[in-house]
């Protein structure tokens, strides 16, 4: 039964890995890599109940999984398939299935009373039915303790996020990429860049963008009001007037009605006369 469950969990992981990502794949993947290779190996090598206690068996399953997985990865490195999703999943699955098969075969050769079989005490899940109050309390505490461990793991996995207050401010080219920023611009003609703001100030914030060329204001956008985590991205035009090489264009971001620029981005353009 336990060996069948091990194989089913492994196969379920392969299916979830094909489908995509998510918490179920993470949970199955952790069991698949951290526990099952060692568990099936221990089951194959110690088929007798008396050889190992359940707790030792569990601890060895974790430890031997950590020993086996790097060696399988190393072997995969020397195959044409390398260390990638399907070769890794299939090689580990093959190891688990083969070890489980050996374990099943060796257990079958033993008298039933000597075979190792895991014993799950599901009765504990109905702890409120225990006749003694002290037992009910203890069992309840155990359930809370188990939930505390699981809760800690979830907390570790999901929290916390960056809580500093700041604003992301960036410029892209007119196509929203970073490849063709304005370089040579004709005087008097409009040129465009994409400007983006992401509010991470932990509150609703007002922004104004002002564009200067060589200290002279050539454009303004705003007021832009963004909620926390809200993103604004838009094409913005400006037209240089003076002619000359290496003219400094400044994109100034003002925040919350302040007269002092919060962030300034720069690019340099050559402004030429129209032919």
């Amino acid at each position, binding site marked *: 039964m336990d060996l069948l469950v091990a194989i089913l969990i492994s196969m379920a992981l392969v299916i979830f890995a094909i489908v995509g990502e998510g918490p179920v794949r993470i949970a199955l993947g952790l069991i698949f890599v*951290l526990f099952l290779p060692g568990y099936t190996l221990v089951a194959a090598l110690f088929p007798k109940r008396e050889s190992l206690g359940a707790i030792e068996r569990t601890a060895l399953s974790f430890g031997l999984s950590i020993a086996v997985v790097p060696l399988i990865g190393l072997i995969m490195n020397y195959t044409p398939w390398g260390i990638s999703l399907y070769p890794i999943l299939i090689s580990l699955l093959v190891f688990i299935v083969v070890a489980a098969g050996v374990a099943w075969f060796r257990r079958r050769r033993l008298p039933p009373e000597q075979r190792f079989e895991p014993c799950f005490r599901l009765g504990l899940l109905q702890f409120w039915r225990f006749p003694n109050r002290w037992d009910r309390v203890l069992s309840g505490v155990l359930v809370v*303790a188990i939930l505390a461990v699981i809760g800690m793991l979830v907390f570790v996995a999901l929290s916390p996020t960056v809580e500093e207050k700041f604003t992301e401010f960036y410029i892209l080219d007119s196509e929203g990429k970073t490849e063709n920023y304005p370089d040579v611009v004709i005087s008097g003609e409009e040129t465009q860049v994409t400007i983006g703001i992401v509010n991470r100030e932990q509150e609703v914030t007002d922004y104004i963008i002002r564009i200067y060329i060589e200290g002279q204001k050539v454009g303004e956008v705003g007021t832009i009001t963004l909620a926390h985590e809200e993103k604004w991205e838009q094409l913005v035009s400006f037209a240089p007037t003076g002619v000359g090489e290496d003219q400094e264009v400044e994109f100034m971001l003002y925040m919350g009605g302040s007269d002092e620029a919060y962030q300034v981005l720069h690019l340099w353009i050559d402004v030429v006369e129209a032919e």
Partner: protein
Amino acid sequence: MTETVKRSHLIEAILLCLILALALFMALYPRLDYPLPLHVDEWMHLGHTQQIVDTGSLSYPDPWQGGREIVEGHPETGYYTWLSTLQISTGMPWLMLARLMPAIVLGIITFAAYAWGRKWGFGLEAALFTTFIHTTIRFLGPAFLVPVTLGLVFFPICLMLLEKLKRDWIPVPLIILSLASLFLIHGTTAVALGLLLGISLILYLILSRGQGRRLPATICLLALPVSALAIFLWNPSLVKEYIQAIISTEHLPMDPIPYPFPELGYMMVTLAAVGFGFMIAKGGWRNYTLVIFTSILLLFVLLYRHWFDIGPEILYERGWLYVMLPMALMAGYGLSRLYHLGLGFFKRRNWRLPLIYLLLVVVVAFALFQRVSGYSKESYYHIIDGPTYYDFVWAGEELPQSSNALLIPDTAWAFVPITGKYVFTARAAPWGIEEVIMITKFFRSGARNTSLLVAMDVDLLYSPFPLNNPDLVEVRDKLYILREEGG
């Protein structure tokens, strides 16, 4: 109730769960207020692992040298293969992996210590003090995503397997397999485990006459060096590097590491000393193994400055980690023995149990208080802050994959795993100070030398100082790209 679960088992299960929760808390403690990897090594391991996942091979361009060199035969390959397999199988985001795995690994070490100690009647005590193993910037530790921590799992596991050698051959290949794998994960830890196993097997052969089979232990002892073949076969040049490292007289330009006893807590240290004494008094190969192993390592880390002057100091500093695990097991043993002594001492008093339980709670609470206070005194640097993290995320998403970036070399460690791009160079203090000064000076002067950037094959800069070069576009705060025609 008694038919399904015995009450004592129930109490033990509750306490074990609470200790495992404590282990998770301890591993999480340094990063409670910071979601990103802390130690420069964590960023480095993530970056190497990412390269393996991206290329599908253990030979890949070194992302911290701009891809100019190929990483081959890395001494911690086993660790990277393990992390790669974990990430590939779970599909877990890299930063979640960095945050979650130290907690899970410490949980496994704690559980393995419990499983080993339980057989001798002090499983919970051993598990409790295993959660106390300290994490610092200098000698690393279980709160970091580092191979030395993963290696600690093998100590209680191999101690458990050793117990089975009395009756069975099967532990022999498992011990050799574990040690060989550990050589590929972290060579130094494998040497420490080899020492433990060697001491243990020799003592078993000497002291256990007539108490079990001797041939499996003899074969295991003789086969221990075979496990090191894994690393020799994987990369023969590493052997030369290891030997050179061991005999080198390199000194770190840093203050000597302070002894970590205050951070561990004097209560735990005292209990470990008590356990040490009880183990000597009780004798037997098992107890003498821990006593001798711990003594050798303590001599190694405490007295090297006076007696030895070879080998990198970092080896001695990180030796503390290998001392702490047996110390934790001894502290558990000490507490357990004191408890039983107390029971015997007051055996005719009605109030003995409440008193002893009260004392037990006081001792554990005091040890825990000292330990958590010790943790709070340790300061952990942050390689990057929140805004920088989002700058790097943006660079990873918006800029071409082939970008090669120039950053202040210590910040560069975090750039690679977050963006998936290469950096010109990355250095961590105290190494590479000259490069840090040179690049800082270059940024401070406005990075005006475009031809130098082209010669360095750099097309992306992340500068803490404003840059004043018309060939650069400041696309985001501190983030500049070199125009193609800039060259």
